[in-house]
């Protein structure tokens, strides 16, 4: 068979429009990630188990303690956005291990020999992580509703929560990608993943307010991206919930964090093969 379509073509080089190029490539990557997710959605449901335990067991018990000042809302309502943020963190932090796996299979080699911009490869993962996060959020809304927590059902608030969750997922998946590029092996990643997630969770405002933390922990919490995610969600998700910084500044800070992390990840991604 001879087909003109197979003949080599010394590319008539058209300098691509960088923005259009990154857009096309990012969604090409996100597209295949999401196809894989829908083909095997079990992971989405197993990831819902942990937040259920936190809300149903931990939350119910700690509601009786009444030792934690949560303003005029119940402890359970206070911690619900925190648990949503936690599930976003825990799901996204394992993106890196998937990338190491793809490196071992040669999939990363193929992406890197393509003329795609390296930032697109990073953003494609972030977009698909964002989508997963949104699915998590929907599940946690349902659990919270079932537990009788007063939720702000107005579309604008739900939209704000989903946007925050998508951005938070993008941040933590990109952070995870950076760690993968540094440690390069699955075994080391597993170790570091465990060591990082718990401190990020406890050194945040997820299950207690920053105000009651000792001074040094306050400092840690303030540089912890999870704090800004929780704060943004707390103001939007539940009736009577208060955001310390306000949604706009939380969201702005998260965008800045994401820009820095994706720039770093785009630099490091090719080193995954070294």
């Amino acid at each position, binding site marked *: 068979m*001879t087909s003109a*379509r197979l003949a080599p073509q*010394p590319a008539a080089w058209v300098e691509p429009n960088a923005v259009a190029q990154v857009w096309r*490539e990012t969604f090409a990557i996100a597209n*295949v990630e999401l196809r894989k997710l829908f*083909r095997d959605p079990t992971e989405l449901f197993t990831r819902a188990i942990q937040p259920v335990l936190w809300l149903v067991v931990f939350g119910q018990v700690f509601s009786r303690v009444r030792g934690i000042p949560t303003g005029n809302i119940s402890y359970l309502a206070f911690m619900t956005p925190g648990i949503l943020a936690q599930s976003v963190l825990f799901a996204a932090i394992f993106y890196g291990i998937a990338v190491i796996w793809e490196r071992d*299979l040669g999939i990363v080699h*193929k992406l890197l*020999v393509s003329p795609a911009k390296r930032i697109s490869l990073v953003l494609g993962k972030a977009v698909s992580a964002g989508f997963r996060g949104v699915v998590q959020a929907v599940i946690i809304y349902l659990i919270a509703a079932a537990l009788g927590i007063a939720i702000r059902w107005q579309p604008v608030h739900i939209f704000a929560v989903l946007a925050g969750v998508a951005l938070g997922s993008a941040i933590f998946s990109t952070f995870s990608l950076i760690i993968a590029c540094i440690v390069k092996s699955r075994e080391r990643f597993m170790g570091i993943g465990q060591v990082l997630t718990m401190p990020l969770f406890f050194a945040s405002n997820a299950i207690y307010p920053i105000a009651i933390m000792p001074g040094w922990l306050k400092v840690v919490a303030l540089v912890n991206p999870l704090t800004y995610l929780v704060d943004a969600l707390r103001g939007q998700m539940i009736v009577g919930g208060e955001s310390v910084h306000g949604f706009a500044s939380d969201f702005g800070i998260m965008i800045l964090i994401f820009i820095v992390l994706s720039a770093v990840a785009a630099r490091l991604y090719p080193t995954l093969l070294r």
Partner: protein
Amino acid sequence: MMAAAKTDSLIERAEFAIETDALTKAFGDLLAVDHLNCRVPYGQIFGLLGPNGAGKSTTIKMLTTLLDPTSGSAKVAGFDIVAAPARVRSSIGYVPQMLSADGALTGEENLMLSAKLYAIPRAERQPRIADALEFMGLTEFGRRLVKTYSGGMIRRLELAQAMLHRPMVLFLDEPTIGLDPVARHTVWDRLRELRQNYGITILITTHDMDEADELCDELALMHRGQIAALGQPAELKAGLGPAATLDDVFARFSGGSIQEGGSYRDIRQTRTTASRLG
């Protein structure tokens, strides 16, 4: 503007599809590729032989822009691998040593991802995918998940993927490793056709002396990062005597030792992939 004009004149002047100049890669103290000088004319099937750890994959990874050289330089399709990596990438196709198509996607989805990443215009994507699948004899399997493919089918899919954007140069790292004889011959036939009909330049590495003998126009035998012997298969054999085989040539120029450090990682990866797919 100036830079673009300058590289454009290079493509006209480039006589060779691949040209390396003292190309070197060091991993710590180890010189995996050691001042390699090598030229591959357009339209040739060029074979890179050598024992495990000789530096074949490392050479390919540098030529495909996956690794930066420690020193030296190289041009592929007229473009400098360090100065113009994006243009090198647009001009080449690459099939890595391990089976690397994404098993969780269908054949068509794998190809569609490549079509998008290589900026093939939307209207041309489907026809080209159909053509590439037909050329590789995979038309009826396009909608099946790749994890249900045999090793030979995956290799053919990877070749389809690597040529979808009509590259000038194809880099194939042990393309027939682990394939049965029929699958191997199918791959050879397709590669010959690509060369014959379209003049594509192909650089392959192999441990299979039959493949080197039958498929390649010219061979370079690498040893410890350097070229120990270079020539057409017939020349290399004749150089050792009338009854010599390529195995003799290989033994003679690789110090008789098949094991030379070895690239544990790639072997392990090939195994992992094989067991995943098997």
